[in-house]
């Protein structure tokens, strides 16, 4: 586990050792490092025991002994799939954004270093089983992203980076208060520890539990942008490079929803029950609100951002439905959303860099000019609207089914989101790909081999797991079950019993 975390970090050192001047070498080296990491994580996944619901690949070392803080890592199914998603996405975005680093304020070397540092942290944050370690990475992760947006983005990048960081910091600091609160209670009851398993056994009076829950939840709700804490996301997405956007929305924001499962529900099950109605309402608002704003977007990256807000609504809906379908569906949704957003952002990025604009109205008729690119965008769009046969369908449907069994009305409202999804995807497809070729677009070039290689695995993954999601769901099921056990809930029984 630690090795997977360390490889990118070593890669960073390697990056600075490389001889100066050779940008290509830097790029190749960085991609090489990320692929090595991918291979390592795949090996780990193969050795993962699906029949066990406890943490695996556990490591634990003392870090700050006076607070009982440990460097403790370990993974369950949810963490495993998220780590795998991360290690898959990093080489892809590096390959896809081959030239993104050249227009930044600093050298490509710094760009690749930042991304590799980010990879280390992303893997670490999912693997952390020590709340303090999690928190540290959770916050520290902001810095590389901040520089990635601010240093290599476009448009109002400095402001966007700032907005992103402030929102995240505010949430993070509230969470810090909650972390401290939890720790103090732990110290009084079981001694100084931050171990998530140990903490889940605390007895907390309900008022305190509610406050602590909120501290964690608000941080995660900002991260996973839940309405009305979302406004940083579109700004960031409009300014970041495609690769950064992919990592930001695809992976980093998942830390929010992951945290809701791992910490909010596991540590504060009663508070989670208390707040469930409110959170479900917010999720529904997110779903519809995100969809409506996506329809009203003129900027293609803004559009993707708002679709994500809508999708995050589904994820939180699934999580707080607290059924096995909801939880597994939501976890699966995190992975699928990672890949489908990756596809969308990458293709949108290519479109934008070719056209020199991110306005949807500037595209038009791309289907005729650049068919491969148009198809890639179309498939990504289909994934965003959860077309059956693509993996996002499975997760979205699981979420809705899982919600329906407990909160039928919420599921019904959520389901209307799929109509809006069709609208925003197809409107964009119609405006950007269909119709007569807009002037200025006649001579755009289609995807080159490198870009095709980058996008192909994403699409392959979307299709494969659409038809055969079992490998992932099998890994997720025990983890979901564990969460439900901890939260003390069971799946509702069919009403018409046999």
């Amino acid at each position, binding site marked *: 586990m630690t090795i997977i975390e360390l490889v990118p970090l070593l890669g960073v050192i390697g990056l600075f050792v490389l001889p100066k001047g050779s940008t290509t070498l830097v790029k190749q080296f960085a991609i090489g490092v990320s692929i090595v990491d991918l291979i390592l994580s795949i090996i780990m996944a193969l050795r993962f025991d699906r029949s066990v619901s406890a943490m695996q690949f556990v490591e634990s070392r*003392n*870090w*700050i*002994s*006076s*607070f009982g803080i440990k460097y403790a890592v370990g993974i369950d199914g949810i963490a495993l799939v998220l780590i795998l998603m991360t290690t898959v996405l990093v080489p892809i975005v590096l390959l896809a954004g081959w030239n993104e680093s050249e227009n930044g*304020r*600093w050298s490509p070397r710094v760009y690749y270093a930042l991304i590799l540092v980010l990879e280390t942290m992303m893997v670490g944050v999912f693997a952390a089983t020590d709340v303090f370690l999690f*928190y*540290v*990475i*959770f*916050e*520290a992760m*902001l*810095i590389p992203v*901040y*520089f990635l947006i*601010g*240093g290599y983005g476009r448009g109002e*990048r*400095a402001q966007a*980076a*700032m907005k992103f*960081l*402030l929102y995240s*910091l*505010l949430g993070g*600091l*509230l969470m*810090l*208060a909650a972390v*401290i*609160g939890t*720790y*103090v209670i732990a*110290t009084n009851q079981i001694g100084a520890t931050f171990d998530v398993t140990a903490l889940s056994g605390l007895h907390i009076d309900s008022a305190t539990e509610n406050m602590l829950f909120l501290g964690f939840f608000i941080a995660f709700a900002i991260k996973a942008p839940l309405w009305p804490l979302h406004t940083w996301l579109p700004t960031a997405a409009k300014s970041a490079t495609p690769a950064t956007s992919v990592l930001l929305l695809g992976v980093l924001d998942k830390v929010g929803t992951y945290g809701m499962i791992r910490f909010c529900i596991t540590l504060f099950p009663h508070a989670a029950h208390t707040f469930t109605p409110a959170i479900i309402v917010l999720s529904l608002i997110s779903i519809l609100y995100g969809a409506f704003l996506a329809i009203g977007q003129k900027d293609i990256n803004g559009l993707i951002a708002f679709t994500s807000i809508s999708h995050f609504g589904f994820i939180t809906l699934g999580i707080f439905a607290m059924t096995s379908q909801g939880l597994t569906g939501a976890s699966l949704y995190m992975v699928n959303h990672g890949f489908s957003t990756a596809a969308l952002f990458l293709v949108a990025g290519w479109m934008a860099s070719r056209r020199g604009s991110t306005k949807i109205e500037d595209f038009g008729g791309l289907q005729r000019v650049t068919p491969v690119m148009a198809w890639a965008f179309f498939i990504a769009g289909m994934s965003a609207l959860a077309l059956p046969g693509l993996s996002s369908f499975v997760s979205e449907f699981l979420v809705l089914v899982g919600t329906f069994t407990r909160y039928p009305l919420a599921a019904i409202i959520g389901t209307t989101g799929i109509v809006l999804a069709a609208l925003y995807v197809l409107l964009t497809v119609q405006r950007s790909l269909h119709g007569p070729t807009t002037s200025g677009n006649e001579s755009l070039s289609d995807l080159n081999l490198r870009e095709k290689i980058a996008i192909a695995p994403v699409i392959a993954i979307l299709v494969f797991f659409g038809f055969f999601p079992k490998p992932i769901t099998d890994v997720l099921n025990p983890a979901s079950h564990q969460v439900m056990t901890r939260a003390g809930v069971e799946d509702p029984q069919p009403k018409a019993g046999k």
Partner: protein
Amino acid sequence: MLTAPQISYSLLAPILIVLGGALLGVLVEAVMKKGSRAAIQTAIAIGTLVLSFAYLIRIHGQSSKTAAVDSVAIDGVGIFIQGTILVLSLIAVLYIADTDNFTAQASAVPGSEEERAAVVAGKQQTEVFPLTLFAVSGMLLFPIATDLITLFVALEVLSLPLYLMAGLSRRRRLLSQEAALKYFLLGAFSSAFFLFGAAFLYGYSGSITLDGIATAISANSANDVFLLIGIVFLSVGLLFKIGAVPFHSWTPDVYQGAPTPITGFMAACTKIAAMGATLRIFYVAFGQAEWQWKPIILTIAILTMVVGGIAAIAQRDVKRMLAFSSIAHAGFLLAAVLALNTDGLKGALFYLATYGFTTLGAFGIITLVRDSSGEVTDLNRWVGLGKKSPLVASIFTLFLLSFAGIPLTSGFIAKFSLFTGAYESGNTVVVVVGVLTSAITAFFYLRVVVMLFFTDPKSDSVSVVIPSIMTRAAIAICAIVTIVLGVAPSLLLNTAQTFATFIR
């Protein structure tokens, strides 16, 4: 038959060594030729501080004793704070040794023929070294003093040299002198409050020792107007030194006007010494009267955090910004006073140490950014520094991130341990306000980062001087400490834990 009082010189040796060094420095000023003074003074100052620190380490095992007829306490907190002050003043001396920062002749009228002549003659101001050592000796005494007279004397010993040092700037001397004047007048004003409060505490308890006051408080449960007046007025003096709202007004002006190395020295060491004394007084003397003073300290802590954080946003001058930031940090530190428990104390000690290093580092960077007329502290002219001098900008960013409390820097661990103590004692409000204010403070730190890195430099922009080896070493030490204590804080946290004890 009268017996001579037991002084225990060995326990006082660290202070005495520094005082001795200071006197030696005065002699050097009087005896030596001008040309060779600077080097000798530097050597004396560094030597003194190192020696003192070494002696402190020798005696640290004998802590938990009182010396000089119970007027000073050599206990864990005292030793820790003294050690921190010594290390930090050593770093500060490294900056001060870069004498380019100080006026050629303090007595010359700014802009006069006399001053020009002094500059041409290559005169260098070296009185600053003995002054520094005097201030350090006061700082060493302040946090370990256990009676009100010693406290008052120590307060003045540390303050008086600082008043002078604030006026020694080589450039913008008018501002510097104005800073000295303001610092002096307000400092004396606050000293008067301190003394008045001390008098009433004496009147209340019939004793001037902290122990005696504590005993009196536990003996009389009733509220006494003398006690209340005593607590309020004494607090004013202390709160003035640590820069808490509403006794903070001097901070930005003095920080801005004073020579930057002195500002760094003040911001780090004075705050630590004052905080050490505050902690001792409130923990040892007023501990039993917490219901009387907690509301006001809570109010002041919150006010300090909020005002410091908010006021910093609109600042255009980097030194003023750091001044308000230091005010906000004072607010955080007051949380430790409220905590009134070992964890709070531990947190405060760790916080003071890390804050000191970060602050000195940040002011060190400021000394490097100059144009033809000297240091440039206008933030608008720092724009795009990241392009010109990535290393300096990066290190400055590191310090800012530490101030902001971003994980993996020492500032984060400090904040964490401090708030943990406060939370443990049930002061949830101060923790919540603290984290919210942290977000506000983060805003202006990050705005500087934006200026440094994400904005293009203007043509009239500034240059970064190549620092002397000593400044370089000082900044490097601060940066390394900031990172190391962020990643592996156990080194210092465990020490802080063992040292987090007071004796009465």
